[in-house]
């Protein structure tokens, strides 16, 4: 609850560094559809860590990284072996390998618990709260021991990604093509596995070997929901990871006290994973292109657009026959012919009025000039499609109407021009109605885009 300068600052810095280190390989894991491989490796490094520990007896040393890197490669190779030679499905092969290695590591650690200072709980869930207390001298400053380690891993990961960016991208996207252009995608795969394994080791003290998966996968997946471009995904993933780390620690020391005055704080590493999950959920709902909310809004707007185009079409056809459509009539027409609900109908009419495409004269609706021009496009698309579907696509003449009702809303000028060419510029649709001429109004706009470019 109470912020302690130095201590809490360091926790956030360490969390953020861990997040950055994980995000770099994690993004490629997500892109390759190997998210669960991250999970497998993070579990499987346990015996590697334990082994490194036994050899040296201390916690930060090269042995541990070496052991973990070997464990990472072993996991990848064994999984591949069981998949190819053992004819096991990939997920199952992974499950067999990592649970076995994890169990082995667990036995090793528990067996050695008396001799060495390695707490299984710490390995599994990390102890970021204690990390700032364990300090070393680094560049003349007293810093947490984990800081230089994480910094170095971050830098190494960054350098590897920058050096092999192109190769990583190609072999993630299209391994066959990568091979044909002389890129060893198998080697890239191994590099990624070693990177993941080493990162897991560097982070396990901070976030624990299970929660490291949340840093590997969640920020990258979140960024993927927001952007479709890889370079932006990488940058966004780093940002999401850092925010998640900060948010995680802050909520770990504040949120529990909202519920009970007895509890001061909770596990930061756990809350970091939760925070990352919350950020993912936010992106899932709010992402600019693929978010659920955007899609829902889009769906409503599309529906309104379709209904308002239907209104224009109806008004045009009534005009054509010299009839008029009363205010009272329009709802019924929309419900029965365009299958539009009351809400969509109302929104559509409001939108048409606002755009001055229709206006009310006494008790009837009328098209404005601009509205008529738009209505001509819709009706023209409709009748061109009817004609085309009947003549070119062999649909029965009494069936084309329904399809044309759907297609008229997605038809642009180029498609209309193409339709006209293919139907041989006939003047009547299959029902004997005239097809309104295309460029009667606003021809400059339409003529500006010649067909076939």
């Amino acid at each position, binding site marked *: 609850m109470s912020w302690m300068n130095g201590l809490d600052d360091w926790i956030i810095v360490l969390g953020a560094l861990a997040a950055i280190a994980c995000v770099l390989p994690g993004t490629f894991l997500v892109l390759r559809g190997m998210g669960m491989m991250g999970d497998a490796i993070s579990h499987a490094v346990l015996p590697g860590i334990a082994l490194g520990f036994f050899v040296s007896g201390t916690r930060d040393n090269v042995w541990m990284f070496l052991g973990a890197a070997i464990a990472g490669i072993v996991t990848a190779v064994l999984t591949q072996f069981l998949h190819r030679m053992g004819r096991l499905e990939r997920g199952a092969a992974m499950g067999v390998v990592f649970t076995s290695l994890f169990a082995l590591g667990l036995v090793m650690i528990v067996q050695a618990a008396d001799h060495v200072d390695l707490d299984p709980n710490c390995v599994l869930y990390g102890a970021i709260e204690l990390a700032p207390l364990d300090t070393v001298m680094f560049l003349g400053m007293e810093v947490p021991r984990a800081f230089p380690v994480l910094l170095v891993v971050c830098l190494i990961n960054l350098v590897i990604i920058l050096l092999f960016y192109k190769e990583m991208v190609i072999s993630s996207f299209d391994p066959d093509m990568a091979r044909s252009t002389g890129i060893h995608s198998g080697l890239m795969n191994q590099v990624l596995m070693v990177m993941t394994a080493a990162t897991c080791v560097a982070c396990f003290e901070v976030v624990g070997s299970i929660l490291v998966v949340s840093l590997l996968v969640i920020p990258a997946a979140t960024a993927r929901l927001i952007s479709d471009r890889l370079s932006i995904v990488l940058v966004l993933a780093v940002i999401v990871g850092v925010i998640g780390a900060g948010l995680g620690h802050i909520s770990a020391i504040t949120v529990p006290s909202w519920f009970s005055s007895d509890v001061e704080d909770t596990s930061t590493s756990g809350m970091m994973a939760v925070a990352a999950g919350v950020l993912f959920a936010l992106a899932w709902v709010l992402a600019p292109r693929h978010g659920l909310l955007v899609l829902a809004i889009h769906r409503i707007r599309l529906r309104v657009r379709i209904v308002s185009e239907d209104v224009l*079409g109806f008004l045009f056809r009534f005009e054509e026959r010299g009839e008029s459509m009363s205010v009272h009539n329009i709802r019924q027409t929309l419900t029965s012919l365009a299958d539009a609900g009351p809400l969509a109908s109302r929104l559509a009419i409001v939108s048409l009025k606002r755009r001055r495409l229709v206006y009310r004269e006494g008790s009837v609706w009328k098209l404005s000039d601009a509205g008529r021009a738009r209505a001509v496009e819709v009706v023209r698309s409709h009748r061109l499609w009817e004609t085309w579907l009947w003549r070119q696509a062999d649909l029965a003449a009494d069936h084309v109407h329904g399809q044309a009702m759907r297609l008229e809303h*997605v038809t642009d000028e180029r498609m209309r021009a193409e339709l006209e060419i293919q139907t041989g510029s006939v003047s009547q649709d299959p029902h004997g109605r005239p097809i309104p001429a295309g460029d009667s109004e606003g021809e400059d706009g339409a003529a500006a885009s010649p067909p076939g470019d």
Partner: protein
Amino acid sequence: MMATNASSVPVVPGSEHDATAPLSIHDMTVAYHRKPVLWDVDLDVPEGQLACIIGPNGAGKSTLLKACLDLVPRISGEVQFWGESISRQRGRVAYVPQRESVDWDFPVNALDVVAMGTYRRLGWCRPVGRRQRSAAMEALERVDLADLAGRQISQLSGGQQQRVFLARALVQDADLYLMDEPFASVDASTEQAILSALRELRSQGRTVICVHHDLQTVQESFDWVVMLNMRVVAAGSIEDTFTIENLRRTYGGRLTLLDQAAMALGRAHRGEEEG
């Protein structure tokens, strides 16, 4: 508007569907991810025919069968089997999926697979008994595989696997058989074996509809044809329908406009690239 225009329809009689047809499809449109792959399919297959569905790759042949059986959702239209919905007539319809659609490494033998055809009639929780096994054995005999009944399915050749699938359909004793590419990559003798089994079914008054890809064997093997390319180009007896003109219209390139329209519809509904 529909009502006002319908009176002036110049051609094509209205769609009066035959309530006794084993399969009749009314105005069916099917989409994957909102992108239409079958447009307004309207079709009646008469009883007792050996029918095939032909068309180029991506024409929607397999999708047509799956949509009829409610395995993929339809966005509009209706499918009836003998005038009723599939849920009331499942017992009379047998489906043979494409051979590639299952994992042939699965730990079952040929007899087990054929016995799956009896599961529906057995009902929930009742185990396969001697009667079901002997029915399955009989069906295996009909496709000449009785001696391989105990063989694990991955050790069968492609043609034998296809015949196992056929036997599984036979054991259902259905009145309508919907088969997805039963002749795909099988050897000549299997082709003959399958064909004679199908002819036998026809001679018993049952109806068979196959998705087919080999134009050369259409005339000699089938008596009814549906020519499909995202929509039904033509359907009818072989003599009337299997013409050069119809073939050209079915296979003569895709209708790019229909493709474009389908893409535009899919995009609009997925919310991509919209003004």
